[in-house]
């Protein structure tokens, strides 16, 4: 069985963001990067599937500059077998269609049985790449999965709907799945597995080798939301803050 997991490296969302000088993206130096949270669930599910079926080869793919190899290495240390890096310093100007097209170009002759992606990225949040990839490869796609069971070429999943409700879907492989938070518990790579991962192969393609599509969506600018000036900001010593909050609660008759 052949499995592909598509991951993205994103800044830690607790970071202090600055708008970059090009005005269409955030300043990407001085940020701490990590694997997109949704994609961690995708990697974990791929590794669990490999553990279940045994004869299974898991490729992890990421698009971006040199630094995204760190996310690929983490996925290899979690148990993926090989990495594919689509080297792209201009990653932020690619739209979801172009990203999906590049991945589809790589994947089209590889006969992957199952492709996992995250539901969305934490930075752009388009929630499109996984679905577009499936459409380009003419494969069935199931989004927002919170459970995954593989049995002899057929997969049963639960999709998360609003308000805690779920729907149950069956699909035959080959198929694409986009992973929602809570699907599983992503593992931490162990030291021996981190060492083993260093020997695993990472193939590199240049984005220009794979890109054949024009973009359909462009970013005109990036900006901070206008402050509506709603919240009263309280700062200072903890004891003073406690007194202020107690006073507010009393004024509002909440205590």
């Amino acid at each position, binding site marked *: 069985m052949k499995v592909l997991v598509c991951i993205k490296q994103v800044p830690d969302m607790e970071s202090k963001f600055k708008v970059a000088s090009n005005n269409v993206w955030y300043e990407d130096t001085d940020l701490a990067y990590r694997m997109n949270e949704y994609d961690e669930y995708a990697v974990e599910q791929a590794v669990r599937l490999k553990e279940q079926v045994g004869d299974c080869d898991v490729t992890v793919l990421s698009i971006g500059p040199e630094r995204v190899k760190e996310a690929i290495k983490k996925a290899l240390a979690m148990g993926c077998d090989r990495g594919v890096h689509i080297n792209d310093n201009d990653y932020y100007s690619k*739209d979801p269609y172009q990203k999906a097209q590049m991945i589809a170009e790589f994947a089209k002759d590889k006969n992957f049985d199952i492709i996992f992606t995250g539901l969305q990225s934490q930075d752009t949040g388009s929630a499109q790449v996984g679905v577009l990839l499936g459409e380009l490869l003419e494969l069935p796609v199931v989004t927002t999965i919170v459970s995954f069971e593989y049995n002899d070429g057929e997969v049963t999943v639960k999709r998360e709907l609003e308000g805690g409700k779920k729907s149950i879907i069956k699909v035959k492989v080959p198929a694409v799945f986009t992973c929602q938070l809570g699907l599983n518990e992503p593992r931490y790579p162990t030291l021996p597995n981190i060492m083993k991962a260093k020997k695993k192969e990472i193939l590199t393609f240049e984005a220009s080798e794979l890109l054949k599509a024009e973009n359909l969506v462009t970013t005109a600018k990036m900006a901070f939301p206008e402050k509506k000036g709603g919240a009263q900001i309280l700062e200072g010593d903890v004891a003073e803050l406690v007194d202020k909050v107690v006073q507010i609660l009393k004024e509002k008759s909440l205590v």
Partner: protein
Amino acid sequence: MKVLLVAEYREKALLETIYELNGFANSLNAEKVFFAVGYESNLPKVAGKLYLADAEKYGEYNPDVHKELIKQVVEKENPDYIVFSHSSYGWDLAPRVAAALKVGQLTEVVAIEDNTFVVPSCNAKLRRFVRHTPGKAVLTIQAGAFAPVVDSASPEVEKIEASAQAKLEFVGYEEAEAKSVDLTKAEIIVTAGRGIGKPDNVPVIEELAKALGGELGASRPVVDAGWVDHSRQVGTTGQTVSPKLYVACGVSGAIQHLAGMKKSDYIIAINTDKDAPIAEAADVLVVADVMQFVPALTSKLK
């Protein structure tokens, strides 16, 4: 300008989100056409033509077939925008329609400014102003971004059929776990967010909830990590609450969480980050370390 607005049904019930799409279309002053795979017995109250495919026949969730049905309507009506709610149905179907039409998609639109669509980025800490190539585009609209509009009219129904094949098999719905805690009735909720750091800190938040005579709530990451039971989750995939007092402890304020709590009467947020999106919803933002501030507040209240 003409827009095609896509309604949703779940277990034979029309979802009210269609009225937000109606409000969105009105804000554009656009000509409106509607589409649904639904039930004739339960139609939206909107003025205009509604293309209706039979949900008994095609299924409430059958994206490969719904996509073909929408394609047919697009050919007939030639709309400028095909508009979905940003929901589990919308974000699943919209990219399929965009791919079929070979047009761009703008996801989770919250506003239109300077002829661009505004979409959140980086957990809503930033916003992107995005444009599509000339011609059609697909949009998904963030829940709550546009005020709902119900027309005092019935749509003019035109039925449509499809011959496409389903690639997926819908087996059925699974109900939400029975809620052991009904947060919708709580007058005071104190919510633990990821900023509390570790599961051992949950009791500290719970103590404050008790001291205030309220219930413990939780944000999604805290529930996913197994620190607090799902029955206490506040947000789109948990419970939507409107207490008199909502205290958000170490909650950054993801859109899905805000959607579930922003109707609270009075909101106090405790966060070290002044720029956290929760500050937009809060009445008071206490800039402090949750684990220093909360125990101090609890002991003062006692």
